[in-house]
C-alpha cells in the first residue's frame, strides 16, 4: 500500500472511519478488507473499475448496508444512528426521486424529514443554483434525465450535510450546470466522498484519491503523488488502469 498512511484513530474528529470492512453478497466479495479514514473537511474521490466495490462501500457508509465484518463510524457514530444520519447526505448512482411527488413536494418532504432550517429559502437557493425554478410543479417523470439528476442532487444536499457521499454526482448534467455545481461544492464547508470514473472531475473536486479494485484499496494518496507515481510521465488514466490491472 502506498500513499497515505493510516493515522491513529480518533473516531469523533474523523468524518469517516472504516476499519477492516468486508462485504460479500450474491456470491461476490464486493468489499474485501477496506481501511479508510477521512478527516473532517477532506475531499476524497473513490476511483475504480466497474464492480470494484465503490457503490457498496458508499452504501455501507450511508447505513443502507451492513458489513459482514469491520467497523464503520461517521463522526464517531454508527451509520444507522440518528446522530450519523444528521451528518450525511447520500446520492446513489442513477438515483430516482419520489415519482409520486412533484419536484417541489420532493424537496419539501425530504427537507422536513431532514429538519432543514429555513426550508423555503433553501429550496429557492437550490432551484436557482440548478436552474429549475420553472420545473417546481412538474412530475419527476416529465423531466429529462438530466433534470431528474439535478433534483436528486438537490435532495441529497438540501440539509447542507457535513459529509456528502456522492456516487457519480455529475452524471447527465449539462456543462453550465456542472460548472455551477463545481463552484457550489467548492464553497461548501463539507467533507466529500465522491465516486467517479472521470479524472477531470476528481481533479476539480477533491484533493485525495483512493483507488479500489476488486473490493480492495490499491492506492491512497493525493493527485500529485498519483501523477508522479512511477515517474513515467504517462497520463494519469494509464497509471490508474495499470493499478487496477495488477490486482487481477
Amino acid at each position, binding site marked *: 500500500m502506498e500513499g497515505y498512511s493510516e493515522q491513529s484513530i480518533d473516531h469523533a474528529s474523523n468524518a469517516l472511519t472504516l476499519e477492516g470492512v468486508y462485504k460479500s453478497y450474491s456470491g461476490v466479495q464486493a468489499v474485501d478488507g477496506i481501511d479508510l479514514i477521512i478527516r473532517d473537511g477532506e475531499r476524497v474521490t473513490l476511483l475504480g473499475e466497474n464492480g470494484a466495490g465503490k457503490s457498496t462501500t458508499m452504501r455501507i457508509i450511508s447505513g*443502507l448496508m451492513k458489513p459482514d465484518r469491520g467497523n464503520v463510524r461517521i463522526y464517531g457514530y454508527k451509520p444507522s*444512528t440518528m446522530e450519523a444520519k444528521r451528518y450525511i447526505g447520500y446520492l446513489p448512482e442513477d438515483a430516482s426521486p419520489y415519482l409520486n411527488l412533484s419536484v417541489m413536494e420532493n424537496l419539501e418532504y425530504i427537507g422536513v424529514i431532514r*429538519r432543514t432550517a429555513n426550508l423555503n429559502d433553501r429550496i429557492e437557493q437550490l432551484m436557482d443554483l440548478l436552474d429549475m425554478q420553472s420545473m417546481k410543479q412538474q412530475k419527476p417523470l*416529465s423531466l429529462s434525465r438530466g433534470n431528474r439528476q439535478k433534483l436528486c442532487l438537490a435532495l441529497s444536499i438540501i440539509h447542507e450535510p457535513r459529509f456528502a457521499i456522492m456516487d457519480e454526482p455529475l452524471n447527465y448534467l449539462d456543462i453550465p450546470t456542472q460548472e455551477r455545481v463545481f463552484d457550489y461544492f467548492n464553497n461548501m464547508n463539507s467533507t466529500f466522498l465522491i465516486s467517479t470514473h472521470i479524472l477531470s472531475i476528481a481533479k476539480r473536486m477533491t484533493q485525495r484519491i483512493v483507488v479500489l479494485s476488486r473490493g480492495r484499496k490499491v492506492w491512497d494518496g493525493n493527485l500529485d503523488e498519483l501523477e508522479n507515481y512511477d515517474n513515467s510521465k504517462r497520463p494519469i488514466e494509464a497509471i490508474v488502469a495499470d493499478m487496477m490491472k495488477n490486482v487481477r
Partner: protein
Amino acid sequence: MFGKVLTLLIKSRFSKGFLAIIIMLLFYSLLTINLGLTTDKSFAAYYLGFFFIVFLASAIYTGGISTTSADRDFLLTSAIGNRVLVPAFFISQALASSLIFISAGSASLIVIRDNTLALSFGIVDLLCMAILPISMSLNMASLPRFVRVGGAAISVIWVISSFFNIPIGPLSFLRGQVIISSLFLILVTLIATVVSFNSIKQESLPFKLSAMSSRNRGFKKLFSFTGRTPEYAVFHLHFKQVDFSSRTASMGNIKIKVNRVSVYTILILVSVLAVAFGIYELFFNKNIPTSLASPNAFLYLLPEAYAQWGLAMGLSSGTLSKERAWLGFTSMPIEKYMGVTMISKMVQTLTIGSPFIVVNAILAYRGMFGAIPSIIIFLILVPVYSGINFTLSFYKKTFQIKQEDVLPTTYNISQFRTLPISFTMLILIFVALFVPISLPFIIAGSIGFLAFLTLNKNYWKRSLYKMIENGYV
C-alpha cells in the same frame, strides 16, 4: 423471423413464478367454486363474472400492450416489419393474460359439465373472454381517459346484465341462455380483435406501443409538508395517498403506472359502494341470512370477506414500490420511518373501510348474520392485516418503480413468498365471520403477530439490508 420474435417475447414474459401462479389460481378456483356451488347454483357465474369484470375493465382503462425498455430500444428499432411484430406482441400478451384468466375461470364450467352443447360453447366463450380484454385494451389505448372510463363502465354493465336475465350478457351461457349469449360474445370478440389488429398494424406501431397514454406534466395539489414535524410529514405522505398495488398483473405482463389518488377520493368511491350494498340488502334482498344455517349465508358473506381482505392487501402492497431508501432511510432511523409509515397505512385502511362499518351497523339492526363480526373486522382486523401485509412486503423481494410503463422483471417466485400468510389472513377473516366466537382469539393472535414483527428493531434493519442487496435503493 416471426417464430424467433415470438419465442423471444414469450421467454421475456414467462418464468417459473408465473407458471406457479397459474397452477395456484387453478387450484384456488376449483376449491372456491366447489365450495360456493354448495350454497348457490349461480355462484359459478358470479365468480367468472367477477374475474371477467376485473380483466376487461382494467384492460380497457389501463390499456395497451406492455413493452419493456429493451423491447423499445432494440426490438422496435430493428429491421423487423410490423407484419411480424404486431402478431408477435399480440400473441405473447394474449397468451400470458389468457393463461391467468383461464386458470382462474375455467373451474366455472363445472356447473354446465353435464350439458355437452353448453360446455362446448362455454369453452369457446372462455377463450373469447380471455382474448377480448387484450383486443379492447389496444382499441382504447390511445383514447382520452374519460372515454376509457366510459368504456370500462359499459363493460361492467354488460357483464352485470347477465344476472338480470339479459340474453346477450357474456355470462348468460352459464344461466341457461347458451346460444344467444355465446354468439354475441364471439361476435364482439371477433370485431374487437380485427379492429385491434388494424389499429396497430400501421407504420406508427413503435410510437403506439411506447407512448400509449398521454401524460400530464404536473400533479394536482395533494400534500403540504412545510411546518410539519418529520414524523407527521411521513404520516401525511403515506396516509393521504392511496398506493394501489402498482402494476396491472392481471394482464399477464407487468404494466406499471405511477398514479396518485387521494384517500378522500377512494373514500367517496367506497362510500358509494357501501351505500349501494346497504340499499340492496335493506330494500331489495328478501332473503337476508339471519344465521349460519341460512342457505345463502355463504354467498352473502363472501363479498364482505373479500372486500375486507382486498382492502387490507390492496392498500398496503404498493407502498414500498414508490419509496426511496436513499432518501427516506438515510434521513430517519429505519424502524422509525417504517413504523410511522405502517401506522399511516393502518389508519388509511380504517378510514377507507369506515363506510362499510356504518352499513353493517344498519344491517346488524336488520338482523343480518355476520354483520356485527363484520363491523369488528373492519374496525380492528382489517387495519391490523394491512399492517401485517405492509410489514411482510418489506421482507419479500420488492420491486421499485423507477420509470413508468416499464417491465422491471417477470414474475419472480420470491415476490410471492408471503402468499401463504396472505391466504391465512383470508381464511381467518372467513372463520371470524362465520364463527363469531373465534373473533377475539383471532384478533388477539393477529395483533400479537404484528407486534412480534414490528417491535423487533432488527426485523426492519435485516429486511432493509436484504432489499438493498437486491438492488432496492
